[in-house]
């Protein structure tokens, strides 16, 4: 009964001197950070700064070549169940919208996948497309299906890798509203973007990467009003950083 009241948590997670190199090129170097429960963390930086690699390292899709990612809970099965990720280009399985969500639920051994999938689709406003082939939906709809699929899993932390990078403003707004709703239900958000406006709308905290290094880790207010590093200041002014 006590476990029902206080389910085991995977967060906080910490990255300690995290590094990743591939083909002799260092993509990420000495990145240390921690993600606490309930926060909205936006990872920013120019193209090639290492944002996507950092997300994949934190989510466990890549193995760091230096340092480590540590979760507060040592039960790795629980840690894996506690997280979900939405990619820039969502992978839709060649089946209906509903079946895409049900597929993810079935993998977790969920008891009532049909009802849970319906509920997730309803939350993202796509229940009317439930029987349509997912691959025939628009880019914006596919990204919302991916969000519904991730949300259905009720993750403790949701990683989003530039989820609106190739979407129009209306679709972007729908995605942002969904992310806000997911956060409002208690899910911690870790998201990459290089859209300053989007970061301002969503972020509690900004992690700014430059050339694979974490050069700024501050609250969103401070980041946008008084950036502490010259790189972040230049990025906000719209000056390209190489």
């Amino acid at each position, binding site marked *: 009964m006590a476990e029902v009241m206080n389910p085991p948590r995977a967060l906080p997670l910490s990255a300690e001197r995290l590094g990743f190199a591939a083909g002799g090129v260092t993509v990420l170097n000495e990145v240390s950070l921690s993600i606490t429960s309930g926060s909205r963390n936006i990872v920013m930086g120019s193209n090639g700064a290492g944002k996507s690699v950092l997300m*994949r390292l934190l*989510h466990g*899709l890549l193995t760091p070549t230096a340092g480590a990612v540590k979760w507060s809970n040592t039960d790795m099965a629980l840690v*894996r*169940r506690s997280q*979900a*990720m939405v*990619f820039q280009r*969502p*992978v*839709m*399985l*060649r*089946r209906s919208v509903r079946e895409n969500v049900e*597929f*993810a639920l079935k*993998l*977790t051994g969920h008891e009532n996948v049909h009802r849970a999938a319906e509920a997730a689709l309803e939350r993202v406003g796509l229940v009317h497309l439930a029987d349509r*082939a*997912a*691959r*025939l939906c628009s880019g914006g709809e596919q990204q919302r299906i991916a969000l519904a*699929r991730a949300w259905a*899993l009720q993750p403790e932390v949701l990683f989003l890798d530039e989820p609106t990078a190739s979407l129009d403003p209306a679709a972007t707004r729908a995605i942002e509203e969904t992310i806000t709703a997911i956060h409002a239900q208690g899910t911690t958000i870790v998201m990459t973007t290089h859209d300053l406006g989007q970061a301002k709308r969503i972020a509690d905290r900004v992690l700014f990467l430059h050339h694979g290094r974490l050069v700024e880790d501050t609250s969103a207010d401070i980041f946008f009003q008084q950036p502490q590093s010259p790189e972040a200041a230049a990025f906000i002014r719209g000056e390209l950083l190489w």
Partner: protein
Amino acid sequence: MQEISQSFSLAFVLIASFDGALLSIAGLSLRVSGIAVLAASLLALPFGAWLALARFPGRQGVIAMLNGMMGLPPVVVGLLVYLLLSRAGPLGALGMLFTPSAMMIAQALLIFPIIAALVRQVIEDAWGEYREQLVSLNASRGQCIRALLWDMRFTLTTAVLAGFGRAIAEVGAVMIVGGNIDGVTRVMTTAIALETSKGDLPLALALGVVLIAMVVIINLVAQMIKTTAMRKHG
């Protein structure tokens, strides 16, 4: 040239008159190759998908060998199966030599590498696209294989059809293990070989036209189903 036109006319007459002997031979051809494809596919689909995802020392060698076996000479496969099933062979007690079952075994062995190699390539390409999503969803290796096979089902029909084409068109293996016994193991290709050796070239060619027509019709139907399904499922 006259022989060719004569052959087409004869083929038309054979089909239009529902020639009993032709129907029997064509039916056996379809049954033998159909069951061989089914059996080979049941093994080759999971094996090819497993090989696409597996990482082990010597994997490249296994892939190279599998690809190489796509060109297995049918007579060699026929000979191996003959030795296995002959009275003195390890499976001689089964009494399967010169039966349609022996022909099915030979054809299944012949096309297994073709289907498995093509499946391996299709699934490996798909894995590049699906890997991060499936791993992110905590899918096990078996769940990944099942999901990929299902999602690539339309593309994989081409691999199965390639196997079927190879099976129904080969003559060497079925001739050796089947023996071309009239009414028992005579199929389209062995009948064509027999008529050719007898010098009845128009009949041999006519049978060839019927065989090609059968394969084309089966491929057309499969293609139509595939196109319709892809339009529906994306």
